[in-house]
């Protein structure tokens, strides 16, 4: 049978961000794939060396549009460790609240994209409509829908009144049944299963070999979550489950993400009801003592790592960002082997790629 090559991207309706694939097809089946990255490289790591630690908080917020808060959290956590600062508990709780809201928003957005790619537009509309509730909560809290600018070195710049807390709890009460409806659809709806079951399967051995992180790893049976395994306050005081599935396919990834969304709603409630009193931030020095630090956090897509080296000035000597998408991307050539052309969309969106994160 003759072979044909189909280019996908860098601009393609299937991809929300620029990434190029060259798929070699034999009939309807993909037999080979090649990937090209780097279309949205902005040189953020180099740029951070030209800016002060304070300015860099806002720079690293722009690494990613979806998980902007977790990037600043990881960066601030690292700089605070270098400075030897102790962030007040209330500040840490509010940081974690935003992290969990961001996880709900990221997973619901992803569910919409996945549903759109498999042709299930109703779920796309519902997921994105319900995501608006979370965005409203975040806008009321921080003043921005996606770029929150909440973190500062030494804590957070926002605070919460009791009335505002009750409003958020009521909004979460509206959101939870909606998420449960979506979870029920993913779990039981035949058309959803027909398009996602046994597609893009990754074994536990492949996950370990490629060092895959986040929900993709948890969908293949690797039980790991930084919030539980290496908890930073306040996660050591909160109770939550880490959902794990063993099928390793696109459906299992959807299930893991939706179960995580439900857990995040519970976590938000726990944080709001146990919010300690006190200040939300402490004053930080502008100059950071020489040293180096590795800061890690569990982003919606997996583990994000910041390496920060200071030479004693008010600007970092080096900041290295390792985003979860970069490790998860490596699995795509394996997943795209011997699948039908119609399933390529499910595989590509199943990994929850954030190309802006990977390219930086």
């Amino acid at each position, binding site marked *: 049978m003759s072979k044909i090559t189909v280019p996908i991207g860098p601009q393609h309706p299937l991809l929300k961000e620029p990434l190029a694939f060259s798929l070699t097809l034999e009939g309807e089946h993909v037999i080979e794939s090649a990937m090209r990255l780097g279309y949205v490289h902005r040189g953020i790591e180099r740029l951070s060396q030209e*800016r*002060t630690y*304070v*300015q*860099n*908080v*806002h*720079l690293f*917020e722009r690494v990613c549009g979806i998980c902007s808060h977790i990037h600043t959290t990881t960066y601030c956590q690292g700089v605070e460790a270098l400075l030897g600062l102790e962030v007040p508990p209330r500040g840490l709780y509010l940081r974690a609240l935003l992290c969990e809201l961001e996880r709900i928003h990221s997973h619901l957005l992803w569910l919409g994209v996945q549903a759109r790619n498999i042709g299930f537009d*109703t779920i796309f509309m*519902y997921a994105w409509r319900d995501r*608006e509730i979370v965005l409203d909560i975040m*806008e*009321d*809290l*921080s*003043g*921005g829908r996606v*770029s929150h*600018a909440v973190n*500062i070195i030494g804590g957070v*710049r*926002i605070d919460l009144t009791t009335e505002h807390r009750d409003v958020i709890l009521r909004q979460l009460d509206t959101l939870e049944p909606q998420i449960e*409806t979506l979870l*029920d*659809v993913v779990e*039981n*709806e*035949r058309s959803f299963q027909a398009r996602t079951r046994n597609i893009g399967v990754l074994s536990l051995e492949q996950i370990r070999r490629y060092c895959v992180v986040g929900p993709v790893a948890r969908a293949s049976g690797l039980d790991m979550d930084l919030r539980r395994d290496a908890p930073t306050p306040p996660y050591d005081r909160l109770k939550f489950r880490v959902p794990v599935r063993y099928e390793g396919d696109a459906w299992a990834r959807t299930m893991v993400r939706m179960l995580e969304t439900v857990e995040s709603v519970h976590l938000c409630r726990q944080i709001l009801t146990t919010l300690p009193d006190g200040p939300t931030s402490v004053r930080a020095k502008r100059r950071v003592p020489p040293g180096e630090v590795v800061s890690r956090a569990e982003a919606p897509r997996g583990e994000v790592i910041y390496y920060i080296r200071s030479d004693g000035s008010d600007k970092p000597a080096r900041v290295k960002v390792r985003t979860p998408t970069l490790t998860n991307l490596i699995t795509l050539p394996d997943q795209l082997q011997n699948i039908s052309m119609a399933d390529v969309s499910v595989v590509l969106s199943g990994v929850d790629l954030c190309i802006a994160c990977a390219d930086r």
Partner: protein
Amino acid sequence: MASPLRSLAYLLPQLWRALKEGPHTVKYPFDPVELPAGYRGRVIIRAENCRGCSMCVRDCPAFALELEREGRDAYRLIYHPERCAYCGQCELSCNFDAISLSNEFVPGKPDRKDLGVVLVNKEG
């Protein structure tokens, strides 16, 4: 449950909710938009509080603020909304409660030059 019935069970409550809530869109700019009190919009200044210390200029990550100094007490603080990232760092950096962000949109202008605003003009 048979699949069509299950689909109806999902759909009907959603339909009821959509009908009850009505449209969510606003005819902006013809109708006003309700923005939360903490929304980060246009930068405003209380010029009498400003001492020209330039902390906001130093910390602004987008270089949207500029301080032109003409003498010890004569200076102009200029704001460039087209560069502004609306992050609120200037508000945090100001020790004299002089600069803050309001919950208003910055309207568009046909010419970029018209966007720049002189926030403080002290002549010594």
